[in-house]
């Protein structure tokens, strides 16, 4: 174990060091991440979409013909995506970088080119490389300019080498398409619904159609339910309609030769005869009469039976294709569903768990874009066709008709469709009537970790409001696939998850070859079998992606052989195969979206990865893919994992073991991987840290100072933690290997010397005491950058905005308000801008709508000042100004403000153990307690934070950190490993310290020793983004809302502090009526009205308009809101009358 815990990069480890057993197998992890990276799933999925799916979609929608001219056709021969290019047609150098897009608010996209063949006049013309639109390019995908570039080249492009990519840049904002979690498609799931009805359901999904089919039990009879029929169809009738008319054959298909099944199924058979349905024709008519009427009036009236046949063939269980009315496979499938239902009635343990991760599929950017593209492409084609028809309809044309010109007119549809979908996150698919919102999110750049965390995030389609615990609970099958710690608190708890470190998500693999392989390995074709063979005790039904292939009588050998082929690298490593002994099934899966992870293969009690392999890996002679190719390591998905026996450590290997874990700490994700000693903490603390790690201020990327983000927080002196974890090294991995000793990090925090003790009373409720000298020296100091933009527009009538130079007063002096402006009308870089000062002196034309007249100078229309004024309580410095233009040729001015802040009272800090606290007091160094060496703490933390939180990991972090400081090396707090407490204590003792990390401290005030020993040492602290400066708010008087005349709401509008309902209740309880009156009316919206005592209505100025008199007017004070109410009531023909009495 010891070598494993020692720090070390593979390449740094001395070759003479003994390689103890396969303990060093964790070296596979960096190797894995080097190949895969943390966002590989996004990139893989996008690449697959661009390289494969695009072609498939075009092939499926290949031909456009005209309704007018039968000779005309247009055929797509091929499609490809170009490299990212600027859309500006005049540009000489069309290449551009993602960073330019970020700065200029552009969309990072590439042209989609098609090759077409079409009829022009009497000729057939072939044109290649015709652009039909632009598609956003995923950063670091195969089509991104950043892929495969060296660090120096990336630096030239102002790009950070540690940036993971996997997101899009749309209109200058970075957008992530989050991973979507769904129930797997095309699989039978047996479950119990709310009423206790057992049903088997299948969600069929093909390119054309999505539909859900159920087989369920009602009154002991079995029915088929589908959206396209109005009522449940007895399953026997459905089978009869599909051509299996003999009851005996149906019984055989469903029950085989088993009596128990037959008994349960008999009522269903009886019902069919009761309903007098015996033949296929009768069955089809029965179903045809119950088909839902669609609004498709265009379709000619067909016979109900034809309609039924059509529905059975292509809508019910749409994923099973029916070729030439051969319904047999579909019948078998339904029979299997029925059998599953019957089996479940007698044994409820056979119910499926829909929360089981194996029943889940993850939808990635590529799949979502593919859906979107197919929709856009279809719309594009139908628009094109309409246009072609319109042109061809005309009897005479001046020019020969060339579709090419038409094709280019429609480019905006696809371009705009993509941009709109990604920018808003609304996926609107007409085909499936799907409308999903919130698919994309702005990439959070609060810290490097928050960006990484976002790339591994998984959202669920579940409604957040539903109070069900199942989908939210931690599933045992999540082990190693999804991080057990990283989930938000509150409403999305358990629904939003994160990938673990070694997770991979599959993409689709073509089925044809797998099907052939299965038959070669001895699967008997389903079409040749009868029910008795299907369910014979030795037979296992073989499924491929949920479709029945056939039967094997030797499942063990079949599966073993199949795996052998896979391990030999003859088929994709991501194809999974597993046996389900309960159902007597063998499932082969090659569909996309399955979660899987690599494991070391073990046979004959010996792991295939040996010391030699690891050695070659660390020498760089082998890479991860070699391990895969040589069959030493393989990917298992959740289902296959369930069929394997995986040992956690080598010592746990028993004869039944099939696999060995690569490294236990990979069950955690990237964000939870930051926590040192997480296995010593109470679990919710780790979850809290996962949420807080994303709010920590630190370094964001190497290009952080070149970025102009809306809000950017940077730490002035970020440090790498004294106690790190392997994950910390790995997620910033990549480059460390090539540059050997020079390590780059993007940390978010500082190693604070912490004394765990009580000091003053300002540390209660988790408040922290900070050392003023530490703050003077730069502890917790941060920079806040804020962006301001101004668009210098051009208007349709020829007028335009302008930026004016600072105006001067009568003496020729520039007034304070405009003092920071340069001659160009924008504040100068480096200047300090105070509240109320103008930083962009923009002026807009007074008239932007009406015609200004031909030949008139647009400058003569007159301008009104629309300056941008600095708001905020503290001054800022101008860090950067850029002048540029957008895609639409509008001038754009961006200005970056910078503030440097030192921690103050109320700023929030947290350690890496979910222990947050605000600064309660800042103490002079000489008043701080100090150790024998004269060391005083940076932070004093109250010990009451420990007992209830049980964050033992934090204590061990302190211990290991202290030992590390004394020994001059970094320590490791990796999960399920890390530096041992015993070793740490040894180091402390060797250096003359107490073994448990306690120190002798003296009071800084009296000089006397503190009567107890104090737990004292370094703990990594994060400064969180919540700072008092952004939140302070107070108001005595201020703006009021226009309509109600009540004080405005919120800090940004300088709003009032609300005396809410509960506070009101309090005052009522006290009977403080005058105070109530003052708070709710006088200090809010008191208004003097004149009430007519005779009619009870409001008058004005001592005059009652209704009574036409001023005789009985009485002035009184009411809330303006009440006056408003009276008037609104009057407008609704309700007369509110005030009856006044002496009081």
């Amino acid at each position, binding site marked *: 174990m010891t070598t494993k815990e020692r720090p070390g990069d593979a390449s740094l480890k001395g070759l003479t060091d003994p390689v103890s057993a396969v303990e060093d197998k964790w070296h596979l992890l960096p190797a894995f991440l080097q190949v895969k990276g943390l966002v590989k799933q996004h990139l893989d999925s996008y690449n697959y979409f661009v390289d494969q799916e695009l072609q498939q979609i075009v092939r499926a929608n290949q031909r456009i013909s005209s309704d007018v001219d039968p000779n005309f056709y247009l055929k797509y021969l091929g499609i490809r995506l170009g490299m990212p290019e600027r859309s500006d047609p005049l540009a000489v150098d069309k290449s551009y970088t993602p960073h330019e897009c970020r700065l200029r608010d552009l969309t990072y996209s590439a042209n989609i080119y098609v090759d077409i063949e079409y009829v022009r006049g009497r000729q057939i013309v072939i044109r290649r490389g015709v652009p039909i639109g632009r598609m956003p390019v995923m950063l670091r995908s195969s089509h991104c300019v950043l892929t495969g570039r060296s660090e120096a080249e990336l630096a030239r492009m102002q790009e950070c080498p540690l940036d993971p990519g996997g997101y899009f840049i749309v209109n200058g904002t970075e957008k992530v398409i989050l991973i979507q979690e769904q129930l797997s498609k095309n699989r039978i799931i047996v479950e119990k619904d709310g009423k206790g009805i057992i049903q088997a359901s299948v969600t069929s999904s093909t390119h054309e159609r999505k539909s859900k089919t159920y087989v369920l039990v009602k009154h002991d009879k079995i029915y088929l339910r589908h959206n396209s029929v109005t009522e449940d169809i007895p399953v026997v009738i459905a089978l009869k309609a599909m051509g299996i008319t003999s009851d005996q054959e149906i019984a055989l298909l469903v029950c085989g030769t088993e009596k128990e099944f037959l008994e349960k199924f008999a009522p269903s058979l009886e019902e069919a005869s009761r309903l007098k349905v015996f033949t296929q024709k009768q069955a089809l008519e029965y179903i045809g009469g119950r088909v839902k009427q669609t609004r498709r009036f265009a379709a000619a009236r067909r016979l109900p039976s034809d309609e039924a046949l059509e529905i059975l063939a292509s809508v019910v269980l749409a994923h099973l294709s029916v070729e030439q009315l051969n319904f047999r496979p579909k019948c078998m499938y339904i029979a299997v569903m029925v059998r599953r239902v019957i089996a479940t009635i007698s044994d409820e343990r056979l119910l499926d768990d829909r929360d089981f991760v194996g029943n889940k599929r993850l939808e990635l950017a590529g799949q979502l874009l593919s859906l979107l593209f197919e929709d856009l492409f279809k719309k594009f084609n139908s628009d094109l066709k309409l246009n072609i028809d319109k042109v061809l309809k005309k009897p005479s044309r001046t020019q020969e008709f060339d579709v090419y010109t038409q094709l280019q007119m429609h480019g905006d549809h696809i371009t705009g469709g993509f941009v709109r979908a990604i920018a808003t996150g609304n996926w609107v698919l007409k085909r499936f009537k799907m409308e999903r919102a919130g698919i994309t999110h702005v990439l959070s750049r609060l810290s490097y970790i928050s960006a990484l965390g976002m790339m591994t995030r998984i959202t669920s389609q579940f409604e957040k409001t539903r109070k069900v615990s199942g989908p939210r609970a931690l599933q045992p099958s999540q082990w190693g696939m999804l991080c057990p710690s990283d989930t938000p608190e509150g409403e999305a708890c358990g629904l939003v998850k994160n990938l673990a470190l070694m997770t991979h998500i599959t993409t689709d693999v073509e089925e044809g070859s797998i099907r052939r392989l299965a038959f070669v390995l001895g699967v008997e074709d389903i079409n040749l079998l009868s029910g008795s063979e299907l369910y014979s005790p030795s037979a296992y039904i073989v499924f491929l992606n949920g479709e029945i292939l056939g039967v094997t009588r030797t499942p063990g050998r079949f599966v073993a052989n199949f795996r052998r082929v896979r391990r030999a690298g003859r088929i994709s490593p991501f194809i999974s195969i597993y046996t389900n002994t309960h159902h007597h099934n063998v499932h082969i899966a090659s569909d996309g979206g399955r979660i899987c992870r690599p494991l070391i293969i073990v046979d004959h009690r010996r792991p295939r990865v040996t010391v030699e392999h690891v050695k070659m890996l660390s020498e760089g002679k082998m890479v991860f893919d070699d391990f895969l190719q040589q069959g030493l390591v393989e990917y298992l998905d959740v289902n296959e994992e369930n069929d394997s026996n995986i040992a956690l450590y080598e010592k746990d290997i028993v004869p039944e073991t099939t696999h060995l874990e690569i490294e236990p700490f990979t069950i955690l994700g990237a964000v939870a991987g930051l926590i040192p000693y997480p296995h010593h903490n109470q679990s919710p603390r780790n979850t809290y840290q996962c949420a807080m790690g994303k709010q920590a201020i630190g370094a964001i990327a190497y290009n952080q100072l070149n970025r102009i983000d809306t809000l950017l927080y940077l730490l002035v002196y970020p440090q790498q933690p004294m106690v790190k974890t392997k994950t910390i090294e790995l997620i910033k991995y990549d480059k460390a290997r090539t540059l050997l000793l020079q390590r780059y990090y993007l940390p978010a925090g500082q190693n604070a010397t912490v004394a765990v003790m009580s000091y003053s009373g300002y540390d209660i409720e988790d408040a922290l005491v900070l050392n003023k000298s530490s703050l003077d020296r*730069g502890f917790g100091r941060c920079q806040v950058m804020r962006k301001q933009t101004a668009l210098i527009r051009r208007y349709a009538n020829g007028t335009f905005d302008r930026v004016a130079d600072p105006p001067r007063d009568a003496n020729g002096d520039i007034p304070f308000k405009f003092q920071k402006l340069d001659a160009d009308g924008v504040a100068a870089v*480096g200047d300090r801008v105070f509240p109320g000062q103008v930083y962009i002196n923009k002026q807009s034309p007074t008239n932007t709508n009406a015609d200004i007249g031909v030949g008139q100078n647009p400058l003569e229309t007159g301008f009104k000042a629309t300056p941008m004024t600095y708001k905020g309580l503290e001054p800022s410095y101008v860090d950067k100004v850029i002048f540029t233009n957008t895609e639409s040729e509008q001038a754009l001015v961006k200005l970056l403000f910078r503030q440097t802040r030192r921690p103050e009272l109320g700023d929030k800090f947290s350690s890496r153990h979910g222990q947050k606290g605000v600064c309660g007091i800042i103490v002079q160094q000489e008043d701080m307690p100090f150790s*024998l060496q004269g060391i005083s703490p940076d932070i004093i933390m109250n010990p009451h934070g420990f007992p209830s939180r049980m964050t033992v990991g934090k204590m061990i972090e302190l211990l290991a950190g202290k030992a590390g400081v004394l020994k001059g090396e970094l320590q490791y707090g990796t999960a399920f490993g890390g530096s041992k407490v015993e070793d740490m204590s040894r180091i402390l003792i060797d250096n*003359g*310290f*107490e073994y448990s990390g306690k120190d002798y401290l003296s009071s800084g*005030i009296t000089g006397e020793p503190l*009567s*107890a020993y104090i737990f004292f040492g370094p703990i990594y602290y994060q400064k969180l983004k919540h700072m008092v400066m952004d939140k302070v708010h107070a108001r005595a008087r201020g703006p009021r809302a226009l309509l109600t005349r009540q004080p405005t709401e919120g800090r940004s509008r300088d709003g009032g502090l609300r005396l809410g309902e509960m506070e009101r209740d309090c005052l009522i309880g006290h009977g403080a009526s005058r105070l109530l009156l003052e708070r709710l009316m006088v200090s809010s919206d008191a208004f003097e009205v004149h009430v007519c005592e005779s009619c009870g209505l409001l008058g004005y100025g001592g005059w009652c308009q209704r009574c036409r008199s001023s005789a009985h007017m009485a002035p009184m004070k009411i809330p303006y809101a009440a006056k408003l109410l009276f008037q609104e009531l009057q407008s609704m023909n309700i007369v509110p009358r005030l009856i006044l009495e002496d009081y």
Partner: protein
Amino acid sequence: MDIEGAGPEIAIRHLDKDRVNFVLSNADLSVANALRRAMISEVPTIAIDIVQFEENTTVLADEFLAHRLGLIPLYSANVEQFKYTTECVCTEYCSACSVVLTLEAKCTREGETVMVTSRDLQSHDPKVSPVMSDEFDRGIMIVKLHKGQEIKLTCIARKGLGQMHAKWSPVSAVGFEYDPHNRLRHLEYWIEEDAKKEWPLSRNADFEEPPRDDEPFDYNAEPNKFYYDVETVGSIRPEDVVSMALDVLQEKLKVTEAALQEGQTMLTGGMPGEPTNDGWNQPVDAMNAAGW
């Protein structure tokens, strides 16, 4: 406090360029601790306080650089000759209250990285310059320049106290201890079994007789010997830090004494004299002041 025989005594155990280790005896704990506190926060030094930027095209922001410059220790042996800015008659700064340092650096060559260090700071007063350990010391790194980057600025260094900002503190740490054997039982050991085994003794324990096991606890005993370990940042020689701190204490006593006497006369009316030597009400240019 009544001192028997001779007054307080200081025995220096070790002294070098930036460190003094001494033993103070025949003094009260309160005095000893006051000395420690005075060394940290009340011995004046000179440090860069205002930075005027002319050119800064480096990667670091102005405030960032100003903070870094502020923390550079400057030789302050003649700090007594300077006035506090608040006491000086000048409007902004003058040679009586401040020292001007300039920094100018530029990188012109491709592929080269210019390291700007405290050695590049040019002081207008040869006696007040950045601290260097020896002639081979390359100075404290301020910023690195890439091709085309330039820095040009003027620093105004002023006299100040550690309690205003840590940059004016002459010491980095002051070790302080008495009664290493815990004879006085000022602290209670937390032990599992045996304090002697579990708690390491400090090195100062060798200078005192270890208590015999059967020695009775003398509850009247007072601490008498105090072990100091003063480490400076280099601005003032360590022995000077100690004597200046003692001067500060004496000055304070004098002021207090005068105030007390005046207070006695004041019983009939009048105001006590304002203490003069305090610089902590100085107005500070909040953002641009180095290091604030």
